């Protein structure tokens, strides 16, 4: 009596909930067991279905299942995460079966999402997908998840902004899609939109990096809040690179979507895992220093002054960087997790504590996390998931990056000749007589504070109701929602004793900042699937609605003239620069999708459209539509038995919302005159009708798997064009505005991505798995409705190289002065493109019995950076090679010629990003060493162990302006990079 659910809603719900499953007269029962091939252990949570049906049974903790089969011969399909699917024929009389599952080395069987609540097996997927296993990213310790993803995703350029503990990381997928808009991918953790905001610390209040607030904020080397997520809690990460895959997220997805699933408990025995890591870091590389003889020193500095530094008639050479960042501090991490569950309840709970100390004294990052994930089968058709996560994340980053006051230690270092002593003597740090605002970086590192503490709570719930499952149709409702709260506090203290503070009218500066963010989102989906009698195809229709509410507010205040020894902002003589900023954004979207799987699951087609409105747009009631159409066709067996070959083609659109406030023309307050407050019209005109940027992308590719699953290959070519770019134009000055926002122009990215895997050796005792990713990207600005222009964070003048955006060129090109014409006007030339020619990574995993060795190499070819660390050293004639012709030529470029050529340097590098050696202890040892334990592993791991590059100074990957769509690759006194080593012990109970 299925038609009964046509009557009103409430009756419908109640009725359907009470409907019995349809039972057929002719049936039989199959029982079976599912085991793992690697050790023969039972496999829980494997899904067993009758071929062609979506509903089936799951194995229990002992790997057992029971499935109802129709009479006659049948075929069952067994699937489990991390294993290859098995297609098993069942004889007409067979009542029992044992199935052995083989590991899926390249994650080809992983399901990939196709909608808010729908997914598809990767072999049918219509777009290029990158799925990373939690195990891969937690093997070698990383400070944050995004760092751990470096080198693992073809098409993604993941770059750290500096080497500081808790430094920002930026992820760019398939090139820049915007010039001044949001450049970050959307992050979704267990269905909750997770804030990855970077909230500036206010460091600029002491470094004076810029008088423009936005430019100053960008130079604070802020932490992006993805750092609050514990990588050890992650089950898998899926990166939606294409606009087709991302279109379900509409105007948040232009920069890609990162979907993170945290671990769930599996039915069966309760497992506990305790792991402990201890390690240390050391300086990876730095600029070196110039050793002076007296002749050279006399030529540069006052001779009497130089003489005063002679020691036994010689000028000493102190390695100031070593004194500053030569520590080998310890780091620790402890994690305990427990997971398990029964038929109805499954859980995963974890707690962790870690501390990574930085190579500069008094710097470091620590994080404490707690997580509880619970899955509850409420009724036979109703499942509830709850996730809660708490994190406290604190870091001390010290004073680095661009500087105009002497605060930044790495900046000031470039001004101090090696013969000046800096170390504390008789309790006093000497004030360098040659230097930058009298700053002594060792004193700054010892006494200054740049602390940030974030408290994070993320919670989500999901209710899944299999309303009705029939022979040919099923209907499911999924409701999900979540909340993400973050509270960040920043404290910057530059005590009055600091020698550079002494040069200020009111020595001693404290900045106190606080911020809190709240993201709420929910979605509701109805998914209907239909298979006709002929079983020739399967259709899945989904309809949904999604709502998001994001709020962020921050405030900050600075006091100068701090009393000695005081750390409260109220202990200052002059209070200045109060800042309070709030942003608020609401988005509502409806979407509809149709998926078809036909021709024996060879053809898959996906079509969807999302319509959404958002409060940040000019017309908050207007709906914007983001469609997608994608298809793939499989040729099973084309490359040999069991092989897979697939062609896919996808088209999709996504958007990028304008930043909050870009639609308003403000009146600027906070100003007084004659004792009264006043407002003036802002010099920046908002765009009342502001539109989202729109990315349209075509993507095509080939996926293949052959040699019995030992080789996999994914090749993708994508071409995306952003239209309605958010831009800023300079109107006529007599209009009274200096800048105006507008939408317009086009920018294109063409990307070639390859992800391949190969198992050269696979034997009982030894397995070697090699994986590689290759990314090549070309960006071109097609047209602009404004003249070519210099973005606000383009650099520090054409004589040092600057970004410049103009039609027909890459948006990330760097131009600079190469000479001057007869009238003295600079001649500029393109000096390179920040975007590399290609990035190639190679990961090798070797497993021999209980021992495994893995390494990850990353090679970046080409690309350039503005190396202003180099220009600082050269302009001050303090580079180590200053005595040579090459060194002198660079000094001349800065001091006499005013040309940028030497300071725009190639960022080609080869890095050994990860190396690990893990030994699983034999069980007899485990029992002897750890009472009650089942297994134990000991690992030696290292990150950033080797770098081969001609790049001068610190790290070819650094960004003075933090996360930027275009103006990355500006290196100006960053926190030095470090190598990290650690010893891990992990014990399972």
């Amino acid at each position: 009596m299925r038609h009964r659910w046509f009557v009103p809603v409430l009756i419908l719900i109640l009725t359907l909930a009470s409907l019995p499953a349809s039972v057929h007269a002719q049936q039989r029962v199959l029982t079976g067991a599912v085991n793992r091939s690697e050790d023969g252990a039972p496999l829980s949570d494997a899904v067993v279905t009758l071929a062609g049906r979506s509903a089936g049974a799951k194995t229990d903790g002992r790997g057992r299942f029971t499935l109802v089969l129709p009479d006659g011969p049948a075929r069952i399909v067994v699937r489990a995460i991390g294993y290859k699917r098995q297609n098993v024929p069942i004889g007409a009389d067979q009542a029992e079966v044992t199935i052995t599952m083989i590991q899926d080395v390249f994650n080809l069987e992983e399901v990939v999402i196709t909608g808010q609540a729908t997914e598809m097996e990767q072999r049918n997927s219509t777009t290029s997908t990158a799925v990373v296993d939690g195990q891969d990213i937690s093997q070698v310790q990383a400070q944050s998840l995004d760092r751990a993803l470096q080198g693992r995703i073809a098409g993604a350029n993941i770059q750290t902004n500096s080497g500081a503990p808790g430094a920002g990381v930026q992820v760019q997928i398939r090139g820049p899609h915007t010039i001044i808009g949001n450049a970050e991918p959307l992050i979704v953790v267990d269905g909750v939109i997770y804030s990855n905001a970077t909230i500036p610390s206010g460091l600029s209040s002491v470094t004076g990096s810029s008088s423009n607030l936005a430019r100053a904020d960008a130079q604070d080397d802020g932490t992006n809040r993805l750092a609050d997520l514990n990588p050890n809690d992650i089950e898998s990460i899926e990166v939606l690179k294409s606009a087709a895959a991302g279109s379900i997220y509409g105007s948040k997805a232009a920069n890609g979507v990162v979907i993170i699933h945290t671990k769930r408990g599996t039915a069966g025995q309760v497992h506990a895992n305790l792991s402990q890591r201890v390690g240390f870091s050391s300086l990876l590389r730095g600029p070196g220093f110039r050793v002076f003889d007296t002749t050279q020193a006399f030529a540069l500095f006052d001779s009497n002054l130089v003489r005063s530094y002679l020691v036994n008639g010689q000028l000493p050479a102190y390695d100031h960087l070593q004194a500053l960042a030569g520590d080998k501090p310890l780091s620790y991490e402890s994690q305990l997790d427990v997971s398990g569950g029964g038929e109805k309840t499954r859980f995963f709970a974890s707690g962790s504590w870690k501390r990574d100390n930085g190579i500069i004294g008094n710097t470091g990052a620590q994080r404490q996390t707690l997580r509880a994930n619970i899955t509850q089968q409420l009724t036979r058709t109703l499942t509830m998931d709850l996730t809660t996560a708490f994190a406290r994340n604190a870091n001390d980053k010290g004073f680095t990056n661009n500087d105009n006051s002497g605060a930044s230690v790495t900046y000031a270092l470039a001004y101090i000749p090696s013969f000046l002593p800096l170390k504390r003597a008789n309790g006093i740090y000497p004030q360098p007589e040659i230097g930058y605002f009298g700053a002594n970086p060792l004193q700054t590192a010892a006494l200054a504070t740049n602390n940030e503490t974030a408290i994070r709570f993320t919670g989500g719930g999901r209710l899944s109701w299999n309303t009705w499952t029939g022979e040919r149709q099923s209907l499911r409702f999924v409701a999900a929602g979540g909340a993400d709260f973050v509270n960040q506090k920043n404290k910057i203290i530059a005590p009055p004793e600091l020698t550079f503070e002494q040069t200020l009218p009111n020595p001693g500066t404290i900045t106190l900042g606080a911020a809190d963010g709240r993201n709420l989102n929910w979605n509701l989906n109805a998914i209907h699937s239909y298979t006709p009698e002929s079983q020739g195809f399967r259709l899945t229709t989904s309809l949904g609605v999604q709502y998001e509410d994001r709020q962020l507010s921050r405030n900050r205040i600075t006091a100068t003239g701090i009393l000695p020894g005081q750390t409260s902002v109220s202990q200052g003589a002059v209070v200045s620069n109060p800042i309070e900023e709030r942003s608020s954004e609401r988005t509502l979207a409806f979407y509809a999708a149709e998926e078809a799987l036909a021709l024996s699951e060879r053809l898959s087609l996906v079509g969807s459209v999302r319509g959404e409105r958002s409060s940040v747009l000019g017309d908050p009631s207007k709906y914007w539509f983001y469609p997608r159409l994608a298809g793939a066709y499989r040729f099973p067996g084309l490359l040999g038995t069991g092989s897979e070959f697939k062609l896919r083609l996808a088209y999709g659109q996504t958007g990028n919302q304008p930043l909050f406030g870009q639609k308003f023309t403000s009146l600027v307050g906070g100003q007084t005159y004659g004792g009264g407050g006043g407002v003036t019209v802002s010099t920046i005109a908002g765009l009342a009708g502001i539109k989202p940027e729109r990315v349209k992308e075509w993507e095509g590719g080939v996926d293949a798997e052959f040699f019995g699953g030992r080789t996999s290959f994914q090749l993708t070519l994508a071409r995306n064009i952003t239209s309605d770019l958010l831009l800023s134009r300079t109107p006529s000055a007599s209009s009274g505005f200096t800048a105006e926002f507008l939408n317009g122009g086009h920018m294109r990215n063409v990307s070639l991505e390859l992800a391949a895997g190969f198992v050269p050796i696979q034997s009982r005792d030894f397995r070697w798995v090699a994986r590689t990713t290759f990314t090549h990207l070309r960006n071109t600005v097609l047209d602009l409705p404004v003249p070519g222009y210099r973005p606000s964070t383009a650099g520090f003048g054409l004589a040092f190289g600057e970004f410049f955006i103009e039609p027909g060129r890459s948006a990330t090109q760097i131009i600079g002065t190469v000479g001057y014409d007869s009238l003295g006007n600079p001649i500029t030339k393109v000096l390179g493109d920040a975007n590399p020619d290609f990035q190639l990574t190679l990961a090798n995993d070797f497993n021999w019995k209980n021992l495994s060795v893995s390494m990850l190499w990353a090679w970046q070819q080409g690309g350039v950076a503005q190396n202003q660390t180099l220009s600082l050293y050269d302009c001050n004639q303090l580079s180590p090679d200053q005595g040579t012709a090459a060194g002198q030529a660079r000094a001349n470029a800065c001091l006499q010629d005013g040309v940028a050529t030497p300071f725009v340097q190639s960022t080609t590098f080869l890095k050994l990003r990860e190396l690990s050696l893990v030994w699983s202890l034999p069980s007899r040892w485990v029992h002897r060493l750890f009472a009650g334990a089942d297994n134990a592993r000991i690992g030696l791991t290292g990150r950033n162990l080797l770098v081969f590059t001609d790049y001068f100074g610190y790290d070819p990957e650094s960004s003075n302006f933090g996360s930027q769509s275009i103006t990355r690759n500006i290196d100006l006194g960053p926190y030095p990079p470090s190598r990290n080593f650690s010893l891990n012990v992990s014990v399972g109970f």
Partner: protein
Amino acid sequence: MMPTTLISGARRGAWLALVATGLLAGCGDFNITDPNNPTLDDLVKNPTKAKLAVAATGLFIGARSDATDVIWRYGSLGREGANLAGNNQPDYQEPFFGPLSTTQFGAAVWSGRYQNLRSLNTYLNAVPRAPDLSAEERAASIGFARTLKALAFLPLVAGRGALGAPVDVDRPLKATPAPFVSEDSVYGYIIGELDAARDSLAAGGSAFPFRMPPGFAGFDTPAGLILVNRALAAKAWVFRATATPSCAGTCYANALLALSQSFISGNPADFRVGAYFDYSNKPGDILNELSETLDGTTYFAFNNTIDDAQLQPGGAVDQRALDKLAFIDSNDTTVTYTLSGFPVAPNRKFAVYFTGGQPDQNASIPIIRDEELVLLRAEANIGLSNYAAAIPDLDLVRVNAGGLPATTLTAGSPASAFIDELLYNRRYSLLWEQGARWVDARRYGRLSGIPALVPNGAVPSRMPIPADECAARKLGTSCNPLGT
């Protein structure tokens, strides 16, 4: 019968729509207004007396925004002094060696003025809509804002001369930029605004519906502001006369009429009476950066102010030069200031904005004051060849401000001698207040009389049109739209 799937699909859609509608009730408002700043939109659409009072204070802030730029930039061009601040090479390169770039030194005294004009026009558009303003308060507000509009244009056109300027700038951002009009038309526009403002102020009742700042003490009622309004009108008429010689008769006569309706006093004790821009160290306010300590490294005065000064009966130089300059300790040899290799020695600083002989960054900067009005009256009389009427005014300033003996000029002296005397007094009376020496030199075709002071130096004749203004009109980065 329809296939069940179709029917159920339709019903399911209806069902979902119903649930969705219920959930939408839980959505917040999508019309989010700016939580951080007041918006222009709100001021124009929903003005109130309180909002407009704050906007009125903002108009003073806007009017003051580049007041110090006018002084040191025009002052550098007139060799009153120089800005030698470390990093800002264009600031001491361009005015001394030329040419003036359209993006650096030469781009100043333009955008800030038009930004305030945007604020002024916004205010003027909002005032008539404010429901809680009386008719008199509206008239007072309009008269006040139109007076400030004129004030915005005065130093701008004084610096650009024949290049002219756009005046009809109250137009949407999307519209084509306002056309350039001639120098004479800019003065005509200024005078038109001032006259209209006077009429509004006259109907403006007894008080402004906002707070007048201390610098307008004595002129802080509508009737009081008319006195300042007329003083500015007199200045505009006098400057228009030199820009447009054919207007001389009318212009100077109108100047004299306006002066008679201004706050001109003729009493030396009132020389400093006038309208001023205020500065303070209160939160949110700005300091008078021109008031620098003697060891400050930004602003320096040139010796020629002393060298060119006439002598007092006792042999001392013009008292104005003595009062307005301060010696830096000449024994301090640690720092030598040079202008592209040319030493600035002996080192002198300005004491114009000192209080009681000490630097005072709260010191006010004059907008227009009595001493200038006396000289404007002298100038108008000279222009009308009423030399006999000009002599007492010249002497009033010479003797009382400069400590100099009375002029030897007689009613029969040649016009050029009167102009020499007038410009000498304007140079010393208005030193480091508005770049009078340079502006006057151009007005009277005497730029060649200003020494370059540096080898291969040059004295640029006028400020250029900024690059942003030219570029928005598709005229490149350097332009002269009127071809003058």
